[in-house]
């Protein structure tokens, strides 16, 4: 009895989450109000790849589409080609960020269609070989046709190469449907979550692309005005840029929305202090310490520094 229930459970769950159990053949999506029957992007340039350079070629195509001057010669040194796919995937993400572009991983194969329908090319990682002898290959999806059952790719030395869904899914499945969006920070992916988007913008901060980060956080705030992380990120990025006025405004807004959280007050105190507004800085720092929380030691340190009048 128990075994029957378990089998039933597995069947139900794996059929409701496609890709989970692999028991059923993957169906391609049905057209709907936000997913037209077919769509093709005209504005993605094609760069033929040299040997082993599918990564730089793919990244160049999408970077150029996103408004950055890039070609495989300039990108290749930024994206090394080691034998293990792992480091290369993170190198692609890192290189995108260094050019001030958001690197956003898609979650699941169906997202790919939504993104292309929204006008975003998707870099995909395929295994063109065998599971025990992989031949990893990056290509750029620039279109699809749900009626014909094809995907259109800039791949290798072939622009607008048409591949049947079955072959495409088979080769793509082996990378666990790895897909990367490279977007200007003014854009949101079609299928987006607050956390993943803000993490992507955080990636720009870490790459020290402060200006792009401010754009990204503003984009996030337009969609999720209640995100403390986005407000704090905006303030931190302005601070890093040296734009103290805008940083102050961002932290004041964060403090207004989240009056019980010390983090906004702490950073506000720092920014006020950096502008020489000693009294206001002291007030904000005290407020942070009063609010307490797990970061209270940081707040105390800030307060001490301001009280000591250190420059």
């Amino acid at each position, binding site marked *: *009895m*128990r075994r029957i*229930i*378990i089998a039933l*459970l597995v069947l*139900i*769950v794996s059929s*409701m989450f496609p890709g989970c159990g692999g028991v059923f053949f993957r169906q391609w999506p049905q057209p*709907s*109000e*936000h997913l037209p029957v077919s769509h093709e992007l005209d504005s993605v340039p094609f760069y033929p790849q040299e040997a*082993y350079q599918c990564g730089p070629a793919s990244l160049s195509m999408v970077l150029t589409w996103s408004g950055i001057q890039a070609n495989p010669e300039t990108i290749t040194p930024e994206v*090394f*080609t*080691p*034998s*293990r796919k*792992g*480091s290369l995937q*993170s*190198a692609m993400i*890192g290189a995108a960020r260094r050019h001030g572009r958001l690197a956003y991983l898609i*979650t699941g194969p169906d*997202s790919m269609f*939504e993104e292309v329908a929204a006008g975003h090319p998707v870099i995909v990682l395929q295994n063109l070989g065998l599971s025990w002898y992989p031949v990893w290959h990056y290509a750029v999806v620039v279109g699809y046709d749900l009626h014909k059952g094809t995907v259109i790719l800039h791949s290798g030395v072939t622009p607008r190469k048409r591949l049947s869904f079955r072959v495409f899914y088979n080769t793509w499945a082996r990378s666990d449907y790895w897909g990367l969006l490279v977007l200007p920070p003014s854009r949101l992916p*079609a*299928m*987006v*979550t*607050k*956390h*993943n988007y*803000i*993490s992507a913008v*955080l990636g720009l*901060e*870490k790459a020290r692309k402060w200006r792009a980060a401010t754009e990204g956080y503003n984009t996030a705030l337009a969609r999720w005005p209640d*995100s*403390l*992380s986005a407000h*704090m*990120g905006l303030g*931190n990025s302005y*601070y*890093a840029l040296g734009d103290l006025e805008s940083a102050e405004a961002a932290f004041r807004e964060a403090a207004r929305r989240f009056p019980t959280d010390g*983090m906004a007050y*702490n*950073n506000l105190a*720092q920014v006020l202090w950096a502008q020489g507004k000693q009294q206001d800085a002291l007030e904000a720092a005290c407020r942070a310490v009063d609010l307490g929380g*797990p*970061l209270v030691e*940081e707040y105390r*340190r*800030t307060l001490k*520094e301001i009280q000591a009048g250190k420059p």
Partner: protein
Amino acid sequence: MIRRVAKPVSILLTICMLLLSLPHKSAFAGMIGTETVLDATRSQEARDYLNRTLAREDVRASLIAQGIDPLEAKARVDSLSDAEAVSLADQLEELPAGGSALGILVGAILIVFIVLLITDILGYTDVFPFVKKHSEVKKDSDNK
């Protein structure tokens, strides 16, 4: 030649990625870094999102139509761990906006409900106090 370069580069990249993932010294002294904020707020924001979703009139109506008490659904969602709450919120949040999304949204909540109920009955989890841990318990979920 590439293979000779590849190994030290891979190691360098791995170290860089590890450094990026360490908690969380801000680049600027005294400032709370954005990553710290993101981590601190993530699970609470996920729970807030789930609670808001369950409080929606259309979601409540769908749950009731399926024979589920919204309060029970809330209790089950509250019982999720931080990681599970974050995972569920992410899945729900990512659905494309539109009318049909409601059906998928409620479906996802239902699945959590059903799965937790079944695994509880099987004895793999112990989420619901009303589930007795022996095989004579009436399996209402089979009728759903």
